[in-house]
């Protein structure tokens, strides 16, 4: 049994701390809209970002990580998108802490967390993607469930050995768990936790598991991520933290580069949208390493 695992975690808020609104004029933003309709949203709204949420929780021999990306288009309905992702992750975290889950069924965990949202007194509305990763230390296996365009990556000896795939209905409209407000029940996309992609893998010593929202993957291609991960020299907390910071900073810098041909821009071109530049977005990265005793 792997007895020790070190985690680094970092969530970068794309806007609030570093840049001011003037920098955005003219950059087209395509928000994730529940109906997949494009629109240009006011760039001066400081709360445009900040919809990601994550959690790390432990129970017996299971370590569970989760990320969720709130769908921003709900702002148009007067709903704060960060509430849904935050509460979904908090519910999943509580499920793990109280042992209300089975390690090899992460999709079930996601479903329970989602069902729990309706039990909150506060009337919740919104939607988000979700990615749950369970590390079963006693069996040295990784169990994953991914719904939407967040995801994970397992890196072994400098190569990607496992990767999640994006689930999208159409461009920029990922699969999402949603709770529509009472007035809008009929019209809203709602995928079930059972639709999540699930997969289980065996783990080896030295494996790096990266779990992140699309803020990272949309702005940094795999080879750039691998390059940064190769600089990780040991499994000390400080090293991991530094690597995560570097990744997040790079992704953020690239997202605001108007000439950079980001993975997001590549994907947009394939779908007929002529855009360049990165995609400013919330960036959440959870990095973990399998260590021995």
């Amino acid at each position, binding site marked *: 049994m792997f007895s020790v695992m070190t985690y680094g975690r970092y969530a970068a808020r794309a806007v609030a701390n570093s840049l001011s609104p003037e920098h955005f004029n003219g950059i087209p933003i395509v928000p994730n809209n529940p109906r997949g309709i494009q629109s240009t949203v006011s760039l001066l709204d400081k709360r445009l970002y900040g919809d990601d949420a994550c959690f790390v929780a432990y129970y017996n021999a299971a370590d569970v990580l989760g990320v969720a990306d709130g769908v921003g288009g709900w702002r148009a309905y007067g709903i704060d998108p960060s509430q849904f992702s935050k509460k979904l992750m908090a519910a999943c975290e*509580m499920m793990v802490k*109280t042992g209300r889950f089975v390690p090899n069924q992460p999709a079930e965990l996601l479903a329970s967390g989602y069902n*729990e949202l309706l*039990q909150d*007194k506060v*009337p919740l509305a919104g939607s988000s993607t979700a990615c749950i990763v369970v590390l079963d230390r006693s069996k040295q296996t990784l169990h994953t469930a991914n719904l939407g365009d967040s995801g994970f990556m397992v890196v072994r000896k400098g190569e990607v050995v496992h990767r999640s795939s994006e689930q999208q209905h159409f461009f920029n409209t990922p699969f999402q768990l949603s709770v529509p407000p*009472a007035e809008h029940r009929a019209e809203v996309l709602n995928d079930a936790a059972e639709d999540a992609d699930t997969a289980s893998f065996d783990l080896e010593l030295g494996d790096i598991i990266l779990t992140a929202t699309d803020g990272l993957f949309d702005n940094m291609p795999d080879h750039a991520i691998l390059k940064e991960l190769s600089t990780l020299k040991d499994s000390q907390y400080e090293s991991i933290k530094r690597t995560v910071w570097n990744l997040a900073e790079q992704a953020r810098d690239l997202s605001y580069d108007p000439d950079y041909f980001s993975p997001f821009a590549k994907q947009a071109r394939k779908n007929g949208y002529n855009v360049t530049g990165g995609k400013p977005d919330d960036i959440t990265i959870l990095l973990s390493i399998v260590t021995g005793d």
Partner: protein
Amino acid sequence: MKQNGPKYIKQYAVGIIDYSSQYGGENRRSFSYSVSNIMGEPQIFPKYGDFTQAAVMRTYGPWWEKCESPKYKKDNRPRLFPFASQDYIDVVFDQAVYPWSIAIYETYNPGSLVRILALCQHFPNQTAKSDRNNNVATDPDILGKAIPLPLIDGFTHWEVLWDNPHPQHNLPTAARMFAPILREIKHRSRIIRLEFCHSHLEYYAELDAVELTGTLEYSGSSPVDPPSGSMSAMKLDKPSTSIITPSSSSEDLAFSESKIDYSLSSAVDPEDFSCLNSDPTDEDNPEHAPYPGGAFSQLPAELLSKIFSYLSFPDFCRAAQVCTLFRSHSYDPAQFNCLNLHTYWHMVNENTLAGIVDRCKHGCTIQTLNMRWVGGGDIMSSDQLHDFFRVCDLLTLTFLDVGSSPCITDKVLKAMTDVLPHLNHLNIESCDKPTSEGLRVLHKFSNLETLNLYRTKVDDAGIICVLRSNTQLESLNLGSCQHILDYDKVFMEMAAHCQQIRIIDVWRARSLTSQGLNELTTHCKHLEELDFGWCGTLQSSTGCFTHLAKSCRNLHKLFLTANRTVSDAEIRFLAEHCPKLRQLDILGTRQVSVAAIELLLLRCPDMQFLDLSFCFSFTVEVVNGLRTLYPHVSIKRSFQE
């Protein structure tokens, strides 16, 4: 070498054995507002607010009691404790210790804890020092009840560690860790009962964790003193032998509760109840006393009888030991019209039951029997209660409350249906031992007016049979009855057979739709109090609520907690058609406007209670404005922050 102080072990709860009620659903996979949240370390503290990770009980305040019509006779004896515990949670810890302190983390509306008891198992021929380790299964089921309590060659009893006769009012609205000083007991324990009274609170009491600190070795009077300054008024070194100091006022024979000096009171010795059926220890001897029975025999019998009716129950029992005259009054059937053993549940055992049987032998007219919570911790077996019902003459009984009693089983229920033909009011809430099949026997009752089946395993067939045979049913509680699969069918049966129904509580009915509700409101014209909290399948778009408003002019309580579909239309219909409305709960809807509520408040002058928590339009400023305009209405606005 200097002698060290005793080693203290701190533990958080690892399991829940039992509880009387909870706000959350009974589905074990759900944790929101569930009592299981009291386990483990604090998750919320020191934050203050209405969070899903807290342990919350089903009710609070006077709102549920206010509505219950007291058609049954109440036991007017003064109680040993002026509060009545309303809820309890039995928590279990990993290791049995001699309790030194218990701290509860209150994260919303503190001040509900009123009593703490410890379940002690001790074995004869064992001294405190050589107390064996309890060999109980140490793998608790975190999601619910667990931990069998083996009663092998030992005695189990409850020790009161602490009680507070005066529930604390007006505490600051902040999270607090409350750790009262406990009585020292000579037994180890790992099972603690926390008792709560919340009728004085503004909103739900919510708890985060409970922490038990104790020692593994018995330390007697510990050299380590408890922290000074806290609860010095409650310093209890030893239980005092004189339990209650009667009123010293000479001009008033009436025994008024407020004059009793409770600061000297402590746990009543369980031995006291065993004297319920004992003979006077002092044999009457004419040579020694000028008057047989003392000066009391000079009083007319009715006057002495009246005096006896003012004695609290433990005193009433002890009086039988004084002399023959007192014994005859203590055994007078007329004194046994109403019996309320709820507060003394931890002292009720087979001797108590035998004492009641003795008194009910000749011409007993007992009408009201309240035995809520008796047998908790398995201090009494269900067979003993079964024999009690079979043997005791309870023909005149019309009111029976055995809520949350682990002694109620299928067998006991069957006995009850055989011996209580005239029962009008039955409360078996939270009795979770009876099975769905066992509960079908309830249809043998045919005179029921009130029936409380909250959190029981009653199923569709069971409740439908009861409805068919009790057509004058007026009050029914089917809250959190998870085994009922089709609430619409139940409502249709109610509409067909129980048209006198006035009070209905179907908290968390998952299958109730407008189909059932419309049927009910069409045929039952006397509806007054309806609790449809968390009934998510009732949709306002079907018009069922507006139909309800139009059909029930006598409606004075409507709870639509967390319905989410309540809109202005419903509020306007209520304002127009239900002028007698006193209590309304529309927690958690985004669709009601301030104007609609203002209209409602204008049209319903009897309004006392309005819960607007988590409603979109009702900000703090708006609610404060309403409170100023309508000071007689208690307007609730909870928050999560």
